[in-house]
Structure formats: structure tokens, C-alpha cells
């Protein structure tokens, strides 16, 4: 550990430092806008520092962390997503009673945990990052203490994440017991070098590690928590859970299984195939008849993680790029979708019923247009980022001839179209007469109807995301070049 090592850890140090600074400032003077500003500055600094440290990459910092271009790219993605979520949080928590300031500390810490995850090359840093992320998420999920649903979500997430972490730890212990190392690269050496290993222990350990990954990524059969947490957590927090935590975990999944070489085991490949197929089918079917938009998105996220697994299964250069491209598209889309939900939720409850969206186009055409774009992207319609992402995933699958997975992906995508269209239909259907009256008139008498004050910060985020969505869909070359020159080197 020397000065250069410390220097390459700059993004992580800045994130951690920002969390402490924000905490002290909160202690001295409570101000929502000040906290937000400091958070954003911290994130922006951390993001900028990626350019300063890029020339040093790749660099192994102790045996725990590796700062290579892959890690830098994903750290950037994590930070950018956190930035967007922080902006969404401002409008959302401004409408709520209670202190919103601590949320930003948690947000920064969660981002730190995710950044550790994407840079880790060792079980220890893996677990450390995971726990920093998870513990922050427990509190974030339950942040609105006045409502019962967030509390429920927080507790459920706490119990389940802790138990799945126990499985993960046990898996790591088994692998360590057999190989005597916790370094990903060394695992590969040992696995390939010595044929007389006791495979049973190693495989059982790997299976339990898959449990740990599966829980965070909400893959079947570890997915059961997803809808409850998505529904219960405040909308911007859900956006964070759905994107940053999953994206960082997936980045680590790629790194661990490709680096350690365990992906080549037939049995592990089989397990992932089963998980992918089950996730795609169960996710899409469960979403079909839901009436709660947050739950629909939860189930659809299960399916989407299944899609990404298809690319993961393909293996090789193209797979890494396809996964990364898909994740970026997914980040943009999901933050956008939850951004819309955030925007039309008010201080009383989140806008999660599909009824809240009925005729949204006639009340807030811009929001409805954004939501439409996001849903079309999720469904994979051309000219959106989602289409290009799905296209890459399918071609990655096709290039490795994993036809069963590709087939299931295509068929279940059709199912997916159904529930996205259900929301779309609701968005554009006409208002009932009285409702139209109320919308055009002054007072919203009905207690169930939402009357949020739209936040400017949220609007800006949504506008930027929509532009990005179409930009990536029409002109993917920029993003592809970036991905090619960074993560291509994993």
C-alpha cells in the first residue's frame, strides 16, 4: 500500500469522505437543499476523479481491490445512477414530513459499497462491499417511518439479506477450505492447475455463492422478496435497489465467475441456465395480471435479470459487452420509470396503483410521454435503448448457440409486452367524466387521487434520461465505443 495505491482508490475515498462531511453538516445545520448540494458535489467529484485515476489502471490495490477499466466504468455507472436518484429523492422527500437529510448519507454509503463491489477481486472485499451496501439499504427501505409498508420492506429485506449473506459466507468458507485462497485470480490458477481437488466441496461452495448473488439480483428461486420490497420502499429508493445494487452485483458476478473460471464447470453452467429460464418465465408471468405498477416493475426486473443472464451464459468478449450495454440501458430505463412514479407520488402515498396512471396523458402529457418511452424500452421496441440492449443479448446468445435460452428469452419477451401495454393503455385511456371534470377544475375531492407538486430536479432528471434513452437507441455507437474500450478488457 503506497501513495499511488491510495491515489487509485480516490473515488472510493471521496465517496466515503462525502458521507462523513454530509453527516457532520447535518449535525450542525439541517437543510435539505444544502445536504443535497453536498451530496451532488461529492458524487460529481468522485465521478471526475475517475478520469484522474484512469491512467493508473489497471492496478491491483492490495489483494482486495483491483482498479481496472472495468471497475472504473462500473463505478462511473454507479455514481451517475446515484446522482440521478439523489435528485429524484429531493423532490420526493421534500413532500414528506420528517428529516430527509440522513437519506443522503445512506445513499453515499450505498454507492460506496457498490463501488467496492465492482472493484473487488477477493472474497473479503466482496463481503465488505456487500454489507456496506446492504446495511445502508435496510435503513433506506424503511426511511419513511410513518408508513407501515416501508417499515415492513426494511425488516423483510434485513432478515432475508442477512440470511442469504449467511449462505454466501458459508459458500466462501467452503471454497476457502478447499483451495486455501480467497483471491479470484488465484482460485482460477488452483482450479485449472490441480485436477485432484475435491470438486464436491468446491461446487457446493460455488452453489451457495450463487445463492448470495441470486438473492441480490432477485433471480428465481431467490426472488420472493422482490415485489414486497419494491412496493414498500419509497419510490426513489426502489429505483436505487433496482439499479445500483443489482448492477454492481452483476458486475461482480461477471468478474467472479469469469476470473475464477468456475463458470466453465458444467454443473455451474447448468444451474445458471435453470435460474435464467426460471427467472424469465416466472418474472414475466407473475407480472401479467398485477395491478400495482411497482410490483409489475419488480416482476419485470426479475425477468430482465434473467435476460442479462442469457448474455452472461454466452461467455466471452461479446457477452461482457452485451451485459454491460444491457445494464446501462436498464439503468436508464428503470430510473426513468421510477422517476415518473416518484414524480406523481405525493405526501400521502406512492402512486403505485395502475389506476393512478389512468388518463395520465390528459393530465400530464410530458410525464406520460416519458413513461411511455421507458415502458417501450423495457419491452424492447426499436429506437429505444432497450431494443439495442436486447438485440445484443440475443446476438450474444446466438453466437454461443445457447438456443434454448434465446428461445425462452424471445417467447417470454412477448409475454412482457402484454403487461407493459396494459400500463400504456391506462396512460392514454380517457378519463371518466367526473375525473375529467376534477382534473380540469380546481379541487381534487377524492382522497385517493394524487396531487403532487412536480419537482424541477426530478423533471430535469427525467428529461435527461429520456434523451439518453433515445440517443442510445438511435446512435448506440458512442456508448458501444466506451464499453468496448473499457469493459472489453475484463
Amino acid at each position, binding site marked *: *500500500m503506497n501513495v499511488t495505491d491510495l491515489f487509485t482508490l480516490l473515488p472510493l475515498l471521496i465517496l466515503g469522505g462525502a458521507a*462523513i462531511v454530509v*453527516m*457532520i453538516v*447535518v*449535525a*450542525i445545520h*439541517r437543510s435539505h437543499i444544502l445536504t443535497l448540494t453536498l451530496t451532488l458535489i461529492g458524487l460529481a467529484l468522485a465521478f471526475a476523479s475517475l478520469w484522474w485515476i484512469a491512467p493508473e489502471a489497471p492496478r491491483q490495490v492490495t489483494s482486495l481491490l483491483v482498479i481496472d477499466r472495468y471497475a472504473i466504468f462500473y463505478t462511473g455507472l454507479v455514481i451517475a445512477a446515484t446522482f440521478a436518484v439523489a435528485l429524484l429523492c429531493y423532490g420526493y422527500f421534500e413532500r414528506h*414530513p*420528517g*428529516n430527509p437529510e440522513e437519506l443522503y448519507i445512506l445513499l453515499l454509503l450505498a454507492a460506496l459499497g457498490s463501488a467496492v463491489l465492482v472493484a473487488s477481486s477477493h472474497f473479503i472485499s466482496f463481503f465488505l462491499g456487500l454489507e456496506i451496501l446492504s446495511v445502508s439499504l435496510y435503513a433506506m427501505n424503511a426511511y419513511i417511518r410513518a408508513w407501515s409498508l416501508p417499515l415492513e420492506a426494511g425488516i423483510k429485506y434485513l432478515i432475508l439479506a442477512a440470511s442469504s449473506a449467511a449462505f454466501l459466507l458459508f459458500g466462501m468458507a467452503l471454497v476457502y477450505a478447499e483451495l486455501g485462497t480467497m483471491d479470484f485470480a488465484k482460485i482460477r490458477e488452483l482450479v485449472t492447475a490441480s485436477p485432484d481437488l475435491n470438486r464436491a466441496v468446491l461446487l457446493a461452495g460455488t452453489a451457495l455463492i450463487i445463492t448470495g448473488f441470486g438473492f441480490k439480483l432477485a433471480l428465481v428461486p431467490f426472488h420472493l422478496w422482490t415485489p414486497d420490497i419494491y412496493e414498500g420502499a419509497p419510490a426513489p429508493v426502489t429505483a436505487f435497489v433496482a439499479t445500483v445494487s443489482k448492477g454492481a452485483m452483476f458486475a461482480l458476478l461477471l468478474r467472479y465467475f469469469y476470473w475464477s473460471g468456475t463458470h466453465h464447470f458444467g454443473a455451474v453452467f447448468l444451474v445458471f441456465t435453470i435460474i435464467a429460464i426460471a427467472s424469465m418465465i416466472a418474472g414475466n408471468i407473475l407480472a401479467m395480471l398485477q395491478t400495482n405498477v411497482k410490483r409489475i416493475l419488480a416482476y419485470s426486473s426479475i425477468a430482465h435479470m434473467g435476460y442479462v443472464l442469457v448474455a452472461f451464459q454466452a461467455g466471452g468478449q461479446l457477452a461482457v459487452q452485451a451485459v454491460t450495454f444491457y445494464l446501462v440501458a436498464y439503468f436508464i430505463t428503470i430510473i426513468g420509470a421510477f422517476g415518473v412514479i416518484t414524480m406523481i407520488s405525493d405526501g400521502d402515498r406512492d402512486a403505485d396503483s395502475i389506476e393512478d396512471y389512468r388518463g395520465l396523458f390528459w393530465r400530464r402529457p410530458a410525464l406520460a410521454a416519458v413513461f411511455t418511452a421507458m415502458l417501450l424500452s423495457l419491452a424492447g421496441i426499436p429506437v429505444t435503448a432497450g431494443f439495442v440492449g436486447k438485440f445484443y443479448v440475443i446476438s450474444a446468445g446466438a453466437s454461443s448457440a445457447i438456443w434454448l435460452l434465446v428461445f425462452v428469452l424471445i417467447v417470454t419477451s412477448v409475454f412482457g409486452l402484454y403487461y407493459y401495454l396494459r400500463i400504456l393503455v391506462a396512460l392514454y385511456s380517457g378519463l371518466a367524466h367526473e375525473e375529467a371534470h376534477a382534473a380540469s377544475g380546481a379541487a381534487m375531492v377524492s382522497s385517493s387521487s394524487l396531487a403532487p407538486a412536480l419537482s424541477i430536479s426530478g423533471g430535469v432528471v427525467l428529461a435527461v434520461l429520456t434523451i439518453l434513452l433515445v440517443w442510445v437507441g438511435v446512435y448506440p455507437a458512442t456508448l458501444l465505443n466506451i464499453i468496448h474500450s473499457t469493459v472489453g478488457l475484463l
Partner: protein
Amino acid sequence: MAVWPIGLYFILVVLLILGMLIGSHLLGQRHSEKATGQPYEGGILSEGSAQVRLSAKFYLVAMFFVVFDLEAVFVFAWAVAGKEVGWAGYWEILVFIGILIATLIYLWRLGALDWGSPGRPRRRV
């Protein structure tokens, strides 16, 4: 490696458990008197509900303990190896303690240290 011993072992385990359950079901005596359903607490009648609301302060103490006493373990570990780790270690522990102090300031300003004076809460809700 033969698999059948494991299978046999598994079957034996299941049989043993089944045997115990069925045996106790068949042989055991049954009654249903007035106090049968009540919990046994050393012969004293139980009183009140089990779901008592405990003061949150209790948890605060527990958390302070976790935060400060367990962190002391790290400081102690440093102190033991203070000479070997040199200045680098010194700065590291300084940062560590600095973060702890920041946390303490935060908790103090939050009013977590105001003991038993609910009259003037510091926190703005």
C-alpha cells in the same frame, strides 16, 4: 465414491425421527386440564402480555456499546502493533478515530445523549 451409504444414512435418519414421533404419539399420555395450555414459568402464574413495549433508550445503549466498545477493539489492536505499523498505521488510526468522533458529534447533536429529559427534545421533527 459409492452413493448408497449416504442414501442409507438418510433413510435411517428419517426412520429414526419418524419412529420417535410416532412412538411418543402412541405411548405418551394425554390430558386436557385447566392449566395444560398455559406456559410454565417456574410455577408462577404468568401475568400480562409478552409483547411489552420496551423503551427505545435500551436499544440506544446497546448500539452505543456496539459502536464504541467494539471499535475500541480495533484501537487496541493498533496500539499493540503501534511500533511495527509506524506512521502509516498512525494516520490510519487517526482517520478511524476521526470518523468515530464525527459520529459522536452527529449523535450528540441529534440528541441521542440527552438522557431522560423528554421536556426539551433537540431533534427537529
